[in-house]
């Protein structure tokens, strides 16, 4: 290796953004359109779903038939580079704890493959402490964020229906797709079991909204990225138009090392290592916006120590890295005998469910404080690795075309069985709110660095009885719904206290949040209600880190709304010479 030197960029940007997912993409879009000179650092390569295509491919076009790899944990066609395990970028865990950390390394981050479930938080979601005494209230309420949800709905596009529900607010919705066959069965059964089922709210364009993006053509493959940009990805919907303004330089393969500060403790820029040439760089700017993901942003802050910020940047409160929480998750699957030997037709629909169940109960009457929503799936999907396996657990259990068969087998009879059972599986998943606790945290591991020499995160997270009791309730509900529709449970039906009722390890649902929470009290929070650091006024965080709590809703829509709000605040404060 030659002499190590740090290359300093000559340009002095108005804003440097770290990370190009939902939060960073929205900041880039808003700030570049406001005429500011922006530098966007992304730790992975450039990515454009119109060019980097895995959509509309057949299973045999993957040698592993779509099976997962370390490089693509959600399958070989999934539009996400990396995931749980990145070469040379480890993380550690405290003994006896679990946290699985999913990291995308690509322009647009995890929004390229995400589920597109686009839910607003409701009024209660900002005031949970006032309701149940746990955690903390947000420093803002629904009325503060509503105008931004409205703008996000219209800018990006989301389908759904206005149902007038108190804590699942109405929005500006495109028309939803009609339910599929299994979804009609689920809707009827769940309704009988007392569970409300409504059209899902997801960011696919069922109608065109502008001349830059096409409308959905129902291939059901949003997780592969959309060549006509008919679904929301930060790469295609935010960063691409931001680049068209000419006001933004995107630097791919730039792994941020540290936020640089001056003697007064103000941010002056970001240092990073370029993954291509492995050289060290510094980029200077008036304002730094972190959107690297809740945990990566916390890592950056904690690694940015200085005389003015001895506990890490923006961390005089000692809350950075703390209150880390993920959505809860528990699932169940089965088969619907009514659908055996069903007629074949294309029911791909949008990439995901057409109906879902928002939280429908009052936690005051339950033994757990926070709610969950239910997602559903099933039907005649595209075969992929795993398809047709385990037939011996099916063909002895159910009559096949009226015949009782011995479990297992082979030959023409086996082919008959596979045709008979195709398209009859169904499943459901609860995704709930966990309570954010101070003791659930990530911190810098004093012993371990990644391949760039950057100290890595050590996680220390455990579920509490609140989440375990919630998972128990999920499983009971799923069983009721399955029973009401005459389905036979094939997996996820035997969980009990010994395995936390099938509750997934924290991190698994990939809704990391809470690590630099906002608040009015600088002693109890890292950021103020504008996502601005209490300790460093020209530093903002706009990913999942500012979340005080994350509701029983997927967090992306709220990241987008808060990032837009923070970005407009930055523009306003610059105009007023306050930054």
């Amino acid at each position, binding site marked *: 290796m030659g002499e190590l030197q740090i290359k300093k960029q000559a340009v002095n940007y108005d804003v440097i953004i770290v990370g190009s997912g939902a939060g960073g993409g929205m900041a880039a879009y808003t700030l570049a359109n406001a005429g500011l000179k922006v530098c966007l650092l992304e730790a992975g390569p450039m990515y454009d779903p119109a060019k980097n295509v895995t959509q509309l491919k057949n299973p045999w076009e993957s040698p592993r038939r779509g099976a997962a790899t370390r490089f693509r944990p959600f399958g070989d066609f999934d539009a996400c580079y990396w995931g749980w395990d990145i070469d040379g970028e480890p993380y550690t865990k405290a003994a006896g704890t679990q946290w699985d950390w999913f990291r995308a390394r690509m322009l647009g981050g995890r929004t390229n493959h995400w589920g597109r479930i686009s839910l607003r938080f409701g009024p209660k979601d900002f005031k949970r402490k006032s309701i149940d005494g746990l955690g903390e209230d947000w420093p803002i309420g629904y009325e503060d964020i509503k105008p931004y949800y409205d703008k996000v709905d219209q800018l990006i596009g989301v389908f759904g229906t206005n149902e007038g529900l108190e804590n699942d607010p109405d929005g500006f919705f495109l028309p939803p797709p009609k339910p599929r066959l299994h979804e009609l069965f689920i809707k009827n059964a769940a309704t009988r079991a007392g569970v409300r089922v409504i059209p899902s709210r997801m960011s696919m364009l069922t109608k065109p909204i502008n001349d830059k993006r096409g409308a959905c053509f129902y291939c059901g493959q949003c997780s592969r990225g959309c*060549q006509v940009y008919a679904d929301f990805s930060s790469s295609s919907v935010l960063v691409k138009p931001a680049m068209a303004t000419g006001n933004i330089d995107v630097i791919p393969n730039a792994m941020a090392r540290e936020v640089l500060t001056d003697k007064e403790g103000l941010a002056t820029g970001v240092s990073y290592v370029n993954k291509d040439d492995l050289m060290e760089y510094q980029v200077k700017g008036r304002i730094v916006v972190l959107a690297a993901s809740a945990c990566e942003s916390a890592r950056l802050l904690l690694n940015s120590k200085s005389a003015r910020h001895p506990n890490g940047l923006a961390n005089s409160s000692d809350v950075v890295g703390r209150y880390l929480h993920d959505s809860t998750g528990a699932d169940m699957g089965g088969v619907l005998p009514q659908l055996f030997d069903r007629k074949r037709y294309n029911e791909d629909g949008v990439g995901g469910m057409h109906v879902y169940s928002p939280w429908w109960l009052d936690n005051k009457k339950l033994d757990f404080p926070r709610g969950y929503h239910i997602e559903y799936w099933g039907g005649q999907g595209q075969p992929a690795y795993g398809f047709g396996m385990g037939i011996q657990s099916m063909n002895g259990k159910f009559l096949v075309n009226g015949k009782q068969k011995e479990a297992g087998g082979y030959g023409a009879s086996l082919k008959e069985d596979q045709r008979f059972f195709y398209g009859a599986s169904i499943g459901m998943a609860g995704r709930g709110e966990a309570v954010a606790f101070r003791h659930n945290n990530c911190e810098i591991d004093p012993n371990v660095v990644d391949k760039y020499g950057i100290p890595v995160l050590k996680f220390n997270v455990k579920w509490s009885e609140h989440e375990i009791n919630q998972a128990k309730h999920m499983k009971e509900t799923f069983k009721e719904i399955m029973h009401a529709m005459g389905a036979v449970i094939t997996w996820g039906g035997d969980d009990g206290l010994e395995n936390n009722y099938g509750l997934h390890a924290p991190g698994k649902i990939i809704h990391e949040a809470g690590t630099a929470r906002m608040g009015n009290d600088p002693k109890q929070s890292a950021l103020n209600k504008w996502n601005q650091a209490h300790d460093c006024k020209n530093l903002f965080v706009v990913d999942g880190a500012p979340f005080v709590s994350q509701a029983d809703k997927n967090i992306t829509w709220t990241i987008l709304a808060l990032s837009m709000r923070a970005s407009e605040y930055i523009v306003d404060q610059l105009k007023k010479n306050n930054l």
Partner: protein
Amino acid sequence: MDRRKSLKALALGTLSTGLLLDACKETDKKAEAPKTDTTGTGKIDRMPEELEHYNKITADKFFTEHEMATITILADIIIPKDEVSGSASDAKVPDFIEFIVKDMPEHQTPMRGGLRWLDLQCLRQFEKSFKDCSEQQRIAMVDQIAYPNKAKAEMKPGVNFFNLMRDLTCTGFYTSEIGVKDIGYAGNKPNQWNGVPEEVLKQYNLAYTEKENAECVSYK
């Protein structure tokens, strides 16, 4: 239905139609010559690290010729040609199995050991390896391991092996072009979703509600 014609029927903007047509040409092209390349390298978006992994694991063969011959016979017993579709070997399932054990090394020992167990059983019962047995003898052997609930206890290793072999054969077959056609998966093509077909709703005595009909998107 001709995809290009169906596409023209889609009332989309010019931009998306153009892109869709390109996407469609791409799929049509693949449909014409799917067997020329099953590697996925260069046909679907790959990171350099993925290509490197692919090249590394495919540089060597895992199964011996004898093992591959046995796998081929077994795969065609599990999925033979019938009136609807071809056999496992028609769908190149043995090649898939050779690849997948290299991609998922956890399958290597159960497959290798299972094949050896099978040969030893055949040697004991018929004084020949499975491959060299008559068709009748092969079926007699397979019948002892293909039905988990009635197999004898001493056949358990064979049952486990056959379960794995059946899983890999089925998954390899139904994710091939022949298998996807057999199972009748009708998607993976641009279309407009108007809900469950009318005759299917009738079959299950279901109907959309007035609310759904009024609120949901429909295309002419």
